């Protein structure tokens, strides 16, 4: 009896704790959506019951250059992922399949880019970029974003390549196919699901990045993350615009996150945890 009772209490308190955390994690997103549909007139007088309006969305999307910033962000992030895929897939393959001198040091050097403080790279790069006329260009940002996207792709894909048994590759080679042919026709299709999910996660990281684009661009090219700052904490702040800016920047990622759920553990841990 007693044991049953205490198990019941335990179950309820478990659910309660989970509910509290879920509210904490999800309510801010709901609140953002609510505010984005509130008119300025109802902003301070209502909480949950109000007349939803699209005027904030209209003002931000049509009245400002936010859409252009969205596009900038898209170009830079997609560009960064494409470059990383092109150079990173073969790189990951080499790290997975060849036993060569300095392999682990090279792999860890690439990983260490992720942990290097961004400001450390930016300070000198700021000067170099101005000399090379890369400051405030798509190419400049795509290049520096490699520090975000490339370590992720190489480390995650290395794991996927290691999962493919060597016999498959050797069998194909015995058939007389060349190295590149085997790579392209047999290995690439096998790692494709991993490649797509790692690519999408790299895209999310690039999309979210802030510091590089804050300090290495900002006039002609500005990412959404940087552009959204202008809605913060000024005296004439429009909370509705702020909510719209946040909602638009967040939406693509939530959709992508839903697509790659299954591969998320592996991607987030850079391949260290094979979930």
């Amino acid at each position, binding site marked *: 009896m007693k044991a049953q009772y205490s198990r019941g209490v335990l179950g309820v308190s478990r659910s309660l704790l989970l509910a509290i955390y879920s509210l904490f994690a999800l309510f801010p997103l709901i609140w953002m959506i609510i505010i984005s549909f509130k008119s300025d007139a109802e902003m301070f007088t209502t909480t949950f019951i109000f007349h939803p309006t699209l005027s904030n969305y209209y003002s931000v999307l049509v009245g400002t250059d936010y859409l252009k910033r969205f596009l900038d962000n898209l170009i830079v992030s997609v560009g960064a992922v494409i470059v990383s895929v092109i150079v990173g897939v073969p790189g990951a393959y080499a790290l997975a399949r060849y036993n060569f001198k300095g392999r682990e040091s090279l792999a860890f050097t690439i990983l260490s880019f992720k942990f290097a*403080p961004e400001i450390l790279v930016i300070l000198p790069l700021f000067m170099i970029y101005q000399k090379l006329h890369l400051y405030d260009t798509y190419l400049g940002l795509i290049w520096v974003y490699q520090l975000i996207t490339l370590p992720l792709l190489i480390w995650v894909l290395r794991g996927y390549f290691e999962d493919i048994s060597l016999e498959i590759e050797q069998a194909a080679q015995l058939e007389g196919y060349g190295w590149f042919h085997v790579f392209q026709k047999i290995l690439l299709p096998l790692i494709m699901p991993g490649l797509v999910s790692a690519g999408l996660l790299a895209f999310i990281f690039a999309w979210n990045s802030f510091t590089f684009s804050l300090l290495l661009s900002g006039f002609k090219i500005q990412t959404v993350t940087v552009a959204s700052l202008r809605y913060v904490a000024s005296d004439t702040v429009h909370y509705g615009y702020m909510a719209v800016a946040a909602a638009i920047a967040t939406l693509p990622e939530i959709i992508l996150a839903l697509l790659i759920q299954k591969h998320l553990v592996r991607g987030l841990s850079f391949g260290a945890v094979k979930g």
Partner: protein
Amino acid sequence: MTESKDEQSGESSKNSSSKYMKIPIEVKARPYLILAPSLIVTIGILYPFVLAIIYSLTNYSFRSQTYHFIGLQNWVDMFSKREFWHAALVTSEYALASTGSELILGLGIALLLNRDSWYTRVLRVLLIFPLMVAPVIAVLIWQLMTNNAVGILEKLLNLFGLFNFPWASSAKTALFTAVVIDFWVYCPFVIILARAGLQSLPKSPFEAAKIDGGSAWFTFKTITLPMLKPILYIAVIFRLMASLQEFTIIYGLTKGGPGNTLMNLSITAYNTGFAFMRFGKSLPYILFLWLLIYIISQRLVKNWLAVQKAASGY
């Protein structure tokens, strides 16, 4: 790090010939060639890192064209400044508070999610959302929450008799506010990893513990936690490295304010370098931070490899 990896492959040396391809001498250069593009792309960017060390020994500033070497002057200046020690303190407070809370509560929530029912299945998907939000956007979202004019938290706190909670605008609560935002974004990271760890645990030790009648806490302490250690180490490595150098959340929230309350090493380096244009002076701050991160990560990775070995002994 490299050493221990070699040990691992040493263990499997019997079948190492089947793990890696046999390479004729003439194609020995191939892996380097295949890797070259990756290295060119990134080393082109890492070259500035070397420059950073050199420039930290000069009085370079964006104001004047000329500069000359002044030895370790910038470094000596930094260590003699109270500003530096304050920044170091803020850096460690922020890192320990956010990583610590994320680790403990993230593990707890992963345990709560680790039973099968319709709502845990739904929550496992929904709870990753905050992790996908850009940290700077998370700051925006939390300003909508905490703002005294439209923020709903004000209304909630009013119910408990708290009025005008100052959040980021007061020196007393700014760090707390920043850590709450960090926690909001990154706690799901720990949850996801911990849950993956929990799922991969073998069933038999738990069944044995059940038969022996061990309490839930005893089972957790003696079986679950040791086996989860490798994965928790990974979570700690990732979170600690990132929170030690956190720039975005603090910059978005208060740019280091109010006053100098939230000025950690990254923000101080940024302020000195960009706002005050004293380039040479700013570099020691960030190089010091890098060194700190490097040493800690080496140590943690070493521990991780040891712990992983111990855990796989089960």
